[in-house]
């Protein structure tokens, strides 16, 4: 089991969600986050006081998947979230020890 975490541009969320559904992903968790990377922020000006906004809004997607489809998921997210411009985001993958479906008590890949 793998946990795939992707940081993407907020306006790409719907595209990514649809693409993941199409390849059979059953569920994802989404959070609105802020952060900085190589994409530069912008400056805001209030009555002459200039503020540099370093942290840009991004969306974080977390997907639990079986080992069998993890490469497909990574490829799908990469394709659907890409604009080709700086700031498209990153994907991280980690192995997961255990998963439990709370309603039924199923464990392991059954619970994914």
């Amino acid at each position: 089991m793998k946990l795939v975490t992707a940081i993407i541009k907020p306006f790409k969320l719907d595209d990514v969600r649809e693409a993941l559904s199409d390849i059979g992903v059953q569920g994802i968790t989404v959070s609105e986050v802020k952060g900085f990377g190589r994409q530069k922020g912008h400056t805001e000006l209030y009555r002459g006081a200039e503020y540099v906004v370093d942290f840009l809004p991004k969306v974080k997607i977390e997907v639990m998947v079986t080992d069998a489809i993890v490469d497909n998921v990574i490829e799908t997210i990469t394709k659907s979230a890409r604009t080709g411009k700086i700031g498209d985001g990153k994907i991280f993958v980690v192995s997961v020890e255990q998963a439990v479906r709370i309603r039924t008590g199923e464990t392991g890949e059954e619970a994914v």
Partner: protein
Amino acid sequence: MSEHTFPSTGTTRSDPMKSPFLRTAGALLLALAPALAFGDAPVPDKGDTSWMMISTVLVILMTIPGLALFYGGMVRSKNVLSVLMQVFMVFCLVTVLWVVFGYSLAFTTGNAFFGSLDKMFLNGVNAGTLAATFSKGVYIPEYVYVAFQGTFAAITPCLIVGAFAERMKFSAILLFVTFWLVLAYLPIAHMVWFWDGPDAYTDAEAAVVATSHAGYLFALGALDFAGGTVVHINAGIAGLVGCLLVGKRLGYGSSAMAPHNLPLVMIGASLLWVGWFGFNVGSNLEANGLAGQVFVNTILATATATLAWSFAEWLLRGTPTMLGGASGAVAGLVAITPACGWVGPMGALAIGLAAGLLCLWAVSWLKHKLGYDDSLDVFGVHCVGGILGALLTGVFADPKLGGVGFVDWVTMELAPYDMAAQVMIQAKSVALTLVWSGVVSFVLFKLIDITLGLRVSEDSERQGLDTVEHGERAYG
């Protein structure tokens, strides 16, 4: 115009025939002076009375919610309720104090600086007593005048709280406002606006007597139609002194303190603008042709200042901001306030243009150069804009520049106008207001700091005044 040199004690002019009286703003009242020269008691015009009650409501709208929202949107979200509550409570506090003793100290005959306590608790005021306007034989009900002037007294201290927003104790603010009203607002209002009314000026001798009753700056000949000195310079300098004594906000200059809700700022500025028609046009005290002129001046100067601020910002900083647009509008409103009944529309245009540019300079350059933390630019907009307006009133009131000039109150005919002399008088009234209100504010803030303490603790400031001082949160 040599007549403008008066004895320093001077509540009287040496030669009222040569140096005719000026109509100054919001002026005076008089419970039907027995000295009225005509037989039948005048009956207030229902049109005037209606307009003055509408104006009064409009000035209330400026404060609650106009000014409250304008200020509330500019602070960080953890302090928005504290600012709203400060404005709301100060408005109520001053309204009560106004009726208890404020009206009496400002608008009864006393000396050149204070009125008397004769009308404490509105003693002697009833539905039949009248207040004078600027036309002979024209009166409005005194109750309406009490309420109208009360709204001016109430908005002025509300303006001050923006300068030290986000760090001052609520209790310190209420205490300061109470004493500042007595020691700064009431005397300045009395000095600028109190007189016996035009019907007291029956002949040269009566004019001398009437003038001896008037406030110091009124007698000096200062022009302040709707409150440039009384309201804006008065509040602006008090704000500057307050923000200097309470100190900068934690993190000022290093962390971002961006306004948390600019749509609120825009709504607040717009309500201020709409309400200002009551403030300026209502200060004419009558619904007549000059009221129409004040109306046009108010809308024109404000629009011009907004354009000036926004285009200058666009040119110099790259983008025209909504905060800049809203600030430009308020700057224009402030600057036209003392001038609105004295200048023509082209004078208003010039004043608006100058106000937009000068106030932008004051908040974006002067403030950072001098390094004080006037949170919401009370000094940069109200004091600087007020001073500019007061001085330019002396320039553009000149009939040669399309101004109204002023009349001899005895003959009601236009008197000769000396621009240089008038600008000097304007400068004197500005200086007096700055020094008076500045010194009173300094002493009061110092005393409160020693006794009660001006500032909340560091932890409280970090947490935000909403939860610490008021036990509630604005959002989520």
